[in-house]
């Protein structure tokens, strides 16, 4: 008993019922679409989304392998020119005075003595790394950063390495924070040079934390203060809804 699409025949009453069923379904859909803004902006929905984001922070913490390295690239793979990205335009990047600059330390740190730029430049060993910067927007670019392992620096200043968070405050009023396992990752660098030059102002002079296992916005530039804490410090974008862990 073969039957084609065209040849569909069925009792009239059934057809009418179906039409009503479909129309009701369509109006329900239309209603959902019309009130879409209200539904998705409802406080309860927003709360659920934020809760899911915090859940995803935990899951990412479990997935994160502190020994797994981000891929490194040859110098020939470096993206030129490297894209500038911040919450302001390039000419608004903060001009930090090198002579008066002092890095402040706070929180669960034994030695809170501020660091001058010459002292930071004198840290050893300095290493270079060509890694991929992935932006939360989706694009990626490969760059070269040089500096010292952040984990070494944290040990040097007597940071409590069992604490949960490391927070950063920046000269451009930006702020962010990361988890301790990522802070101690061997590729997480406190960098002073970009593309073999002293960090240019748009790229974070005098100091940028380079984390190839996190999205770009988790890599603070123009750092003026570092603190170690167990209280969730949030961040500039994180407080507006971007996922806090944002690790790769």
């Amino acid at each position, binding site marked *: 008993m073969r039957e084609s699409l065209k040849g*569909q*025949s069925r009792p009239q009453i059934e057809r009418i019922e179906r039409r009503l069923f479909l129309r009701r379904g369509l109006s329900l859909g239309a209603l959902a679409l019309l009130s879409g803004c209200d539904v998705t902006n409802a406080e309860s929905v927003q709360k659920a989304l934020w809760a899911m984001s915090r859940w995803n922070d935990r899951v990412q913490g479990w997935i994160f392998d502190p020994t797994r390295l981000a891929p490194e690239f040859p110098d020939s793979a470096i993206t030129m020119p490297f894209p500038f990205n911040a919450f302001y335009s390039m000419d608004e990047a903060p001009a930090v005075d090198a002579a008066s600059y002092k890095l402040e330390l706070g929180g669960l740190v034994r030695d809170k003595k501020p660091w001058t730029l010459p002292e930071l430049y004198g840290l050893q060993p300095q290493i270079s790394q060509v890694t991929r910067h992935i932006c939360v927007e989706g694009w*990626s670019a490969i760059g070269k950063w040089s500096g010292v392992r952040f984990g070494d620096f944290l040990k040097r200043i007597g940071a409590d390495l069992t604490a949960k968070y490391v927070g950063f405050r920046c000269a451009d009023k930006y702020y962010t924070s990361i988890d301790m396992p990522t802070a101690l990752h061997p590729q997480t660098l406190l960098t002073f040079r970009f593309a073999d030059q002293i960090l240019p102002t748009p790229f974070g002079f005098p100091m940028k934390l380079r984390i190839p296992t996190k999205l770009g916005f988790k890599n603070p530039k123009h750092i003026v203060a570092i603190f170690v804490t167990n209280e969730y410090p949030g961040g500039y974008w994180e407080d507006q809804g971007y996922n806090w862990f944002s690790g790769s």
Partner: protein
Amino acid sequence: MTPSGHDTVRIHPLVVRITHWINAFAILIMVASGWRIYNASPLFGFKFPSDWTLGGWLAGALQWHFAAMWLIAMSGLTYVTYGIVSGHFRRKLLPVTPAAVWRDVAAAARGKLAHGDLRVYNAAQRAAYLGAIVIGIVLVLSGLVLWKPVQFYTLGLLMGDYEGARYVHFFAMAALVLFVIIHVVMAVLVPRTLPTMFTGRVRLPGAAGGD
């Protein structure tokens, strides 16, 4: 539900019906929020209209995407596991041969594809549903690479690393959307398939009140 149980037969198991609608809902969220995420850094020379997207801005879209991700992962995994373990896939989707698919697609194009017996999928349907499952798996895997390009680096190499995975994810999305459009059009053309996806039951061909 089955006052006339003697002339209806169950064609969609409960697990399939439940996961079908959860998957449909989750895919709607994933696609709509995914388009908003795409718009933040388009791969091609176009953007999706804002009104078709979900989330309001990039951060909102990402929140939706990474919340619905769990829904699609759990429902999709349940569906695929059930389909394999219960033999549902083997019974309903196999065998499928290129020749049979070609024959049925050609028949459908001429409006002459048989839909008399909803218990049996024609070859075009089998290919489409198997294709949708494969596309879904590709979407999840490429999505994992985009979410965790370092942790899933080896998997990423299969699709051209992070940047390659962006294209894989995009084209798999496009293929899935194409599937959904065809799927919905076919359901509208053969509307008695729709209630079946809720009740799971279909009247036997030739039974009272039937065709």
